[in-house]
């Protein structure tokens, strides 16, 4: 059994978090990248496009049509742990728990920009009624 009991709940949590990031201090750096990133999640399945190519970050769940420069594929559980800063990227990439398709230097450039998200995610969960998903509390 994964962290999320239903696809709907996972979508609610992760899309809500992306939207919170889109209006956070991280937004200018993400917009500077100009990247369109498609997240392909499994167990439960969900596709989310995070589009940083415009003036504002556009988060589009279920968008399977838009062309993206970067595709990140992983399970919903790996994604959840990632936003706590609990995923060893080297391990995840070498063991293919996470697959990154696209220009790797551009992806690496994003990593410093999203570091504040690791602190933001548990706060976001707690303040939006998703305390049960905060693995730092249940640990």
């Amino acid at each position, binding site marked *: 059994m994964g962290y999320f009991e239903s696809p709907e709940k996972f979508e609610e949590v992760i899309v809500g978090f992306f939207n919170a990031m889109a209006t956070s201090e991280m937004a200018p750096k993400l917009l500077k990248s100009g990247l369109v990133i498609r997240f392909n999640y499994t167990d439960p399945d969900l596709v989310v496009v995070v589009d940083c190519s415009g003036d504002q970050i556009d988060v589009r769940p279920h968008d399977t049509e838009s062309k993206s420069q970067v595709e990140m594929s992983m399970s919903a559980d790996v994604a959840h742990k990632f936003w706590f800063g609990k995923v*060893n990227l080297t391990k995840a*990439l070498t063991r293919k728990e996470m697959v990154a*398709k*696209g*220009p*790797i230097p551009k992806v*690496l*450039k994003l990593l*410093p920009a999203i570091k504040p998200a690791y602190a933001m995610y548990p706060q976001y969960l707690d303040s939006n009624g998703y305390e049960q998903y905060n693995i730092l509390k249940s640990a």
Partner: protein
Amino acid sequence: MIPEFFEFFNPTKVIYEAGVVKDLKPELDVIGITRYFVISDRAIHGLGLVKKVTDGLESAGIEITGMYLEVTQDAVLENVKLCAEAIKASGAEGIVAVGGGSVIDTAKAANILFSEGGDLVEDYSGANMLTRPLKPFIAIPTTAGTGSEVTKVAVIYDTENKEKLAFPDKYLLPNLAVLDPELALSLPPQLTAATGMDALTHAIEAYVGIEASPISDAFAVGAIELIMKNLVAATEHGDDIEARGAMLIAATMAGISFSHSMCGCVHGMAHATGAHFRVPHGVANGILLPYGMEYNFEEIKEKLARLAPAMGVETAGLTEDESAKKAIDAVKELIDSLNRLGALPKRLRDAGVPEDGLEIIAEGAVNDGTSFYNPREVDAEEILPYIQKAY
């Protein structure tokens, strides 16, 4: 400290001997194919180094099906495509690359298209996109710097979109790396110093980086010891075969190390310095290395103190801080020695960087992917004073 997780994977066979390219038959027999395509550049060909290799291959019964000699200073996408087409058309079964990092990276990327077909950017951009081993590939470095003969990455410049593409994949690792110091004898002092400082930066950043493991550390320390003892000699006396050999081995060991534990803020600053002010990568690394070590000092001093003896520092009676500082001093002294030989600038200003460009370098270091692997968070305001010191 033992990391929670690390992976070590280095299937490349490495052989070393002065003049070994004349006799590769035992290694070629193991690989088992007889038709190779050779990749190099015009300068290396002009020095007669390609002929040394092809003579050796032919004497071992190998057929050279063709050559691609148009590799430029950077490995570029259009050359990779042309090179792959030439390999396919020649009927080769495998590839031999003779040259520096750009030649070897071109060969790695061309091997993807030669072995698997498709479009390099559309089909293979990403991490670990390959699913099976490629065609046999032999790397013969003629410089002692990049370590590309043992790294799993090909860095290719897309001139049309003006961006560097990286292809990290274990299947890019060559079957065989041939270290023959006779091929490095003609490297001029400036290139010897710059490529040597590139290798030293690989080793030191790999050693203090957050992805370091006891295995990558062992390779890093070995490389650092060899470089500290031999880089000046190889630069001053280009015909010193022992020093040349030591530097080739060191660059390979540093390559194995940083291919596993990555680089940090020195590379981040050097990438920005190269991109904005056209300072050669090894020169930028050489100038910035001690200042990057100082920036990271609090986070890395314990490891630097342990490293100091390998850098020739006598640490008896010294505190951890003192030993660590002396390790940085040892790097500065090495740079001074190379500078006195006229082989390496000591300051960014001497390499053509304008004073109003320092903030751009600081911003570039923050936004560079290597900052993710740096032991201390890379902050533009905090790193700027160190870049100013390097100026």
